[in-house]
């Protein structure tokens, strides 16, 4: 076992040394800022993986694969929505199994200066208790553009959600439009480090009421530790939540290149 670990560590240590310097700009771009989706798609044949853990010990995993250079298919466990089912003021995050399909165009595809564009659809297919049949579907249209050390993201989401009450009645949130936006800045003096900030809307389930949307603002830092892997330290604030209830989390991203 130690031999295998030594070999892996040796390979990890030597591979960046033989290549170009590691920079955030030269590394794989991720399909989201913090919560908000970006218009970056995984390259053809790339597989992007993410693992996250927050201070409440809620974790999540995600995987996304590039398809044909113009699309991306993803699976993740999403803990963004909150539930409150007969629980007073305490609202707890629950996880959803979520699948996503995104199709889009890269920067400068049609015209010089054109931003990257993505039309995405994400849908939950499983959820943890107390609402086994809670569902969220989301269509998003996002534009992203690199402007020197800054990457800007702007777009809109169309979100629908629903669950079945104990009486059997279906309680739904009709498709609702909300904006989204994000910013990534890689200071030239720290080419491996990117500062992140974004704003998005996520679903919230309250007992007896139709699902609603609440804003989530996030900020943090991404450090490109390896060419194929980065670490993020993030803070997230929600609507109707005190500063003390903010979520602190860590994420590890890894890109498995060119399985083809």
């Amino acid at each position, binding site marked *: 076992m130690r*031999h295998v670990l*030594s070999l892996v560590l040796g390979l990890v240590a030597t591979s960046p040394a033989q290549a170009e310097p590691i920079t955030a700009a030269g590394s794989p771009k991720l399909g989201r800022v913090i919560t908000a989706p970006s218009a970056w798609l995984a390259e053809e044949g790339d597989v992007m993986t993410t693992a996250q853990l927050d201070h409440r010990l809620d974790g999540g995993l995600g995987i996304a694969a590039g398809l*044909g250079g113009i*699309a991306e298919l993803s699976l993740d466990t999403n803990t963004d929505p909150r539930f409150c089912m007969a629980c007073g003021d305490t609202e707890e995050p629950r996880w959803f199994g979520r699948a996503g399909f995104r199709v889009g165009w890269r920067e400068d595809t049609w015209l010089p200066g054109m931003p990257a564009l993505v039309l995405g659809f994400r849908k939950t297919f499983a959820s943890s208790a107390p609402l086994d049949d809670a569902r969220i579907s*989301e269509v998003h249209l996002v534009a992203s553009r690199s402007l020197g050390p800054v990457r800007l993201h702007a777009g809109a989401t169309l979100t629908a959600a629903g669950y079945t009450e104990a009486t059997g009645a279906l309680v739904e949130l009709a498709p609702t439009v909300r904006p989204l936006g994000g910013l990534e800045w890689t200071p030239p003096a720290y080419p491996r480090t990117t500062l992140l900030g974004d704003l998005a809307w996520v679903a919230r389930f309250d007992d007896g009421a139709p699902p609603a949307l609440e804003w989530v603002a996030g900020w943090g830092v991404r450090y490109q530790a390896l060419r194929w892997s980065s670490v993020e330290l993030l803070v997230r604030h929600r609507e109707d939540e005190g500063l003390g209830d903010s979520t602190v989390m860590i994420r590890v991203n890894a890109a498995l290149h060119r399985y083809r």
Partner: protein
Amino acid sequence: MKQLGRSLMLVVATTAVARAQPQPDVPTLPPDPGGAPAAPGTDPTADPQPGDPPTVQADPPVAPPEAPYDPYPAPSASVPDEPPRPPINMPEVLTTPTGFLLPAAVFYTKFGLDTGGGATFDSRIGLGDVAEFGVATTDAIRQRQDDSDEDSDRIQPYFTASFRLGVGEDRLFKHQPAVALGFRKSFETKSEGYESRIAELTLVASKHFGDKFAMHVGGAFWDASLAGQLDSGDDVEDRSITFHDVATPKDQFRPFGGIQARPLPRSLILIDLGWAPEFCYQCATDARKIRLRPVLSWGVRYEVASWMRIESGVRVPDIGDANLLNAQIFGQVSFTSWGLRRAIDRAKQ
């Protein structure tokens, strides 16, 4: 650490032993049949002497005596080269048929899964470049209990058989689109105590515009039947209805179509709009018990190899109600095979 050191020593020792081995015997080439002169002082016909280095007797050359010896002879001329196979135009956009037929004796198989637990299978074979036969399971047929049931479920597996015939693009005259007349019929399927069947007659035309764009337009004439306890209340008897009895021919006809664009050499973007029957077992009127619902799909086809494609996308089963919650993300993989065609071509020669 000790273990690591031992392993390192073992590797070094093994390498050293391997390097100390004598070189394996190298077979010597037979004397040049053309009569190349032997080295001075040697007699090529003489028996080997005890002090001579060992030689390995090589097989006699296969080539005729006048040809030079070739250790890697070329394949026999009797095996013909594989003729170049044209790219295959797919018989479906994502959910709707195209006017393209499979080439003769080409097999096509597709497996699909979606986030709603739907699973589909489709297998076809091209017949003589003018027809196609296939069997499939579809998850597009849906069911509801009554008018108050807002959520429709799929009926699966729903087995169907299909036959299509037509002509390829530019076959009859220049700029002629590919045209296919198809008939698809389901086997009787029982779900929740109700028996149902569907049948669909389609006529579709497909046309490429340049290398990167194609369009598909068609019309479908639907029929269906439903049998079981279709009325609420006590002492009601089972009965059956058919779509052609409860709907007008205009209601049975629906246009469908799709487009495909190829922004990258191996990747296509596909969008299509089709229709699928929905059965509502206890709906108040017979006209509402069998209805056609629009299905919008968009996605991408990635041609991994000439024989394999991966498709993924989104399917909204009832775009008429703009119900995003029922939309599904699907993944499909399809395979095509020229194996039977190759065997037929060989048998012809």
